[in-house]
């Protein structure tokens, strides 16, 4: 069960019209490609995708699940929006646990022994089958994937504290004074019968916020259930903020962080059906990722270009992320910036600046479909939602 209903509100303009799992990433991918590919590579062939916030483009992207080989006869990928039942008004998913609660009938159709809960906001490669084996061997009620973080970072995560037996004995959400450095990755395997019981119990608790981390896990701990940590070593990033989205994209320029070239664990994506990219006479491309359909005649360094990006002659792109269909006209400069889908940077415009060491400096962001007018300068840290903000 893939939780893909989150807004990603800290991505501001980038997620004003699309859900975070639909965010383009690392050239040809969208964030949801990572959990979907992990499922397919782990041999999981039935996946429910729970959507709520701005689901239309995400629904279209996931489609029949064919790019991930999830279009099987008996199973496959299912989009699960909130719905109405007879005699009820129907309601939005009020929390991660409530989203699963509302789709218990879907899970029951498959009569599973175990349920894997995933989030659609993370970039990583993981074999869920291995995690399931560990879960079965330990006969745990719930297994939670954890990753070691620094003690400073630990204050930003849900932290698992372990007892002397190695099992989880306490869960703290964003603790001010963390006792452990094991952060929850938002990946859970539950014994389905037990989860079902706790979901119903939690649903009837008027004080619960219906969240896995805040409510279900503490309730299971209080109920004396065996909760096992599953240590994950490798690359894992939450891309919930502009800075983390930019950082994680820059990580893709280094093959030592997350090897996307690995044929044993392919990350699959829906292809835009465009010809190979063309590097023209004026193209100078260094230390960058470029995707099919691009047409480049300018300078590009330390950048990530999604499909069908156009870079005009004499334009300069540095340390930036250009999402699908973005156009940078001749002579424009884009540095330390994120340019949204189908945005246009007109001739002579200048987006972003090099880091100046100041506190207020940050990556500049131009939202999807925005046109930055000719000669306009967009300063560092800017967040442009609408073309009217950046016409000369």
């Amino acid at each position, binding site marked *: 069960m893939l939780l893909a209903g989150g807004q990603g509100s800290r991505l501001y303009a980038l997620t004003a019209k699309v859900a975070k799992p639909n965010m383009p990433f690392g050239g*040809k991918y969208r964030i949801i490609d990572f959990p979907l590919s992990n499922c397919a590579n782990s041999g999981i062939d039935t996946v429910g995708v729970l959507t709520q916030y701005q689901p239309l483009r995400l629904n279209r992207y996931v489609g029949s699940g064919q*790019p991930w080989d999830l279009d099987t006869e008996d199973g496959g990928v299912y989009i699960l929006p909130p719905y109405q039942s007879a005699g009820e008004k129907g309601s939005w998913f009020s929390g991660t646990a409530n989203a699963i609660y509302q789709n218990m009938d879907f899970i029951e159709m498959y009569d599973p022994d175990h349920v894997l809960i995933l989030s659609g906001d993370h970039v990583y490669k993981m074999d869920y089958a291995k995690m399931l084996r560990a879960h079965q061997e330990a006969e745990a009620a719930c297994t939670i994937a954890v990753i070691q973080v620094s003690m400073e970072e630990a204050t930003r995560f849900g932290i698992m504290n372990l007892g002397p037996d190695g099992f989880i004995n306490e869960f703290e959400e964003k603790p001010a004074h963390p006792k452990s450095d094991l952060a929850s990755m938002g990946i859970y395997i539950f014994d389905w019968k037990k989860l079902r019981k706790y979901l119903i119990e939690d649903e009837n608790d008027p004080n619960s916020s219906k969240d896995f981390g805040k409510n279900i896990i503490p309730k299971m701990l209080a109920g004396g259930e065996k909760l096992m940590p599953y240590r994950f070593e490798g690359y894992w990033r939450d891309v919930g903020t502009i800075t983390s989205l930019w950082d994680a994209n820059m990580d893709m320029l280094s093959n030592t962080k997350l090897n996307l*070239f690995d044929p044993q664990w392919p990350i699959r994506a829906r292809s835009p059906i465009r*010809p190979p990219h063309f590097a023209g006479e004026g*193209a100078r491309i260094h*230390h960058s*990722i470029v995707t099919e359909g691009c047409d480049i005649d300018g300078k590009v360094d330390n950048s990530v270009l999604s499909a069908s990006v156009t870079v005009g002659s004499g334009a300069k792109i540095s340390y930036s992320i250009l999402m699908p269909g973005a156009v940078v006209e001749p002579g424009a400069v884009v540095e330390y910036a994120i340019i949204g889908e189908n945005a246009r940077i007109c001739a002579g415009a200048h987006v972003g600046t090099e880091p100046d060491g100041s506190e207020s400096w940050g990556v500049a962001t131009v939202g999807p479909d925005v046109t930055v007018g000719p000669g306009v300068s967009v300063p560092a840290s800017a967040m442009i939602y609408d073309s009217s903000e950046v016409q000369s």
Partner: protein
Amino acid sequence: MTDVHGIVYAYHSSPALGDLTRSRTNASLPFAGRYRLIDFALSSLSNAGVRDVGVIMQRDFQSLLDHVAGGKAWDISRRRGGLKLLPPFGTHHVGEYAGTAEALNAVMGYVKDIPQEHIVLIPADVLCNVDIAALVEQHVKSGCGITAVCTKNNPTAVHYRLTQKADGKVEKVLFHQVGAGEGLAAMEIYVAKKDTLLELLAHCEAENRFHFHKDCLAHYLEQGGEMDVFLYDGYTTRIDSVDDYYRASMDMLKAGPRADLFPTDRPVRTKERSDVSTYYGEDAKVENSLIADGCFIEGTVKNCVLFRGVRVAPGAVLENCIVMQDTVIGEGAALKYIISDKNVEIAPYVTLTGGEKLPLVLPKRSKL
């Protein structure tokens, strides 16, 4: 488009393509970084809404089968109808079909059972992106039994040619293949009424004739049949030799031909491979080149076409080359005017030079 059926000729291997078609037919020849020639025919049909397509194959079709599979990439994998692969029935055919009329007669059982009224006939090795919907619309409106797709472009190449009457309909078919001169060049793409086609094929079968031009079209006109002309004005060329292949590949480095073959409203589909985006290294130097996904480029690439998964090590220099998928170019290697087939390995510091008139072909899986 429910009243149209497509038939693609995919059986031919041109001897002049040499090693490039040693283990494949022209139809599955890799082209433009991520395609096979047959993708253009299948995509054109699919883009026009044609859902029932027969592909005539005869031998060396392993690579073609692998590529086309069930037709899913072109949306022609259907519960009823959809893609049908047509190997020869029986064993009485020795050698390659002498002409497309013989090929059609060899799969006559299939042609007879076609439920649609019109049939589009299209060779897999003619590069073009024809608006089949517009072609069929004009054909139906004209009331003619056959419409031929012709071009005024590519005047120097050798083609069968047709001359027109004052009303634009075909006057006669010129039997000799000639270069620029009289008439219009036929691209060997036709749309025909099924009944008309069956009559002409029966004539060929009875008289033991094999050639669509000489034996079907000429006969049709002699009998007083009306044939219309549909003019295609985009880029087109037939791939019949290494020279054709090399020139057409290099034409893909020009914006005009590229836009003609890959218009956004008639996309060319192909079998997907799930490659990662291409990575350019710190010292990569790439210009005037067409580059597919999955490449890892650390050297110099100039005037080249790179297919998916090609690796160019630091210090390697490629100029005017076509490098097919998963080929690895070692450090410091220098290649000029080379066509490297799939999975070739070039060791460090190897130097290979072909010529523009005679590019050097490295067969599949060679190790140098």
